[in-house]
């Protein structure tokens, strides 16, 4: 049996989405101080998701992680994240991110290993609750 290359591990897409949404939540909290108390716990949830997903990637792809650990740490580059102008639009954007991610994690549940399916399903359910508290 040929192992899947680490670069093709489907968890990579979920990690990328989660990392992006975490950055967008940071930007939302900075831009919308009035809603910071509501958004910060959601940001903490997404950080926990990212940590768990990265740990799962490392567990299945130890060689890929050890080689990347040898490389110097870098800060994500690119244009700064700009959120909408009004609090209502910011909340709507964050809710949209949660919906997008919920679909992605739900889709990932069907073909994953049992352990991953339970993890992805739990994250999808958390995202459903994020949408609910932002409604």
């Amino acid at each position, binding site marked *: 049996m040929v*192992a*899947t290359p680490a670069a093709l591990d*489907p968890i990579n897409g979920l990690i990328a989405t989660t990392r992006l949404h975490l950055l967008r939540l940071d930007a939302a909290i900075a831009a919308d101080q009035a809603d910071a*108390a509501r958004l910060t*716990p*959601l940001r*903490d*949830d997404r950080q*926990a*998701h990212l940590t*768990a997903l990265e740990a*799962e990637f490392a*567990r*299945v792809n*130890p060689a890929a992680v050890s080689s990347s650990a040898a490389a110097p740490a870098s800060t994500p580059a690119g244009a700064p994240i700009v959120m909408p102008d009004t609090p209502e639009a910011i909340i709507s954007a964050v809710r949209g991110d949660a919906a997008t991610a919920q679909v992605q994690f*739900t889709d990932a*549940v*069907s*073909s*994953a*290993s*049992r*352990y991953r*399916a*339970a*993890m992805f*399903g*739990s*994250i*999808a*359910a*958390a995202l*459903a*609750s*994020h949408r*609910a*508290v932002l409604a």
Partner: protein
Amino acid sequence: MTGPTPSPSPPPADAGAATSSPPPDSNAPSSSVVAVPTTPPPGPLSPDAQTALQSALAAEQAAVWAYGLVAAYARDQADMTSEARSGHLLRRDATTARLLQGGAAAAEPAAAYQVSVPVTDGGSALQLAQDIETDAAAAWRVVIGSTDDAELRGFALTGLSDAAVRLAMWKQVVGASPATVPFPGQQ
């Protein structure tokens, strides 16, 4: 309320996906008319899935009963309580049907259940409501991790998501912060 069986442990690191995508079908017609995919009928349940689904059924049966208790004390949240109870009732019946379709036994509900907190007022009733959803979420998460059947995983994910949303709603009612949990159903 009794807790469900624990979540699965991480498998060996080389564990891959439970299923793989089918190869491209070179004989597929080139017609622009595409067949609408249909959901296959539920198949027999594996022993693991059967056990997990029976635990989920027990959690749903307990939820239906316990929301009757919540309703008696959380009268300011009558609509939420009624909606939650109806949701669990539908899910209980769907779970019973799924077990029977899979060739497994579906136990009858008990006459009464031991609850996690003595319910004596609105506050304890709202705590029980949160415990009900926590238990239901845990039971459905175990089902997802107990089967390779995509249809059953989807069915269980709906139960898990519904419970996570209701739990967050109850936490908001009592003013708890945070109102959400990062991994619903994880014990």
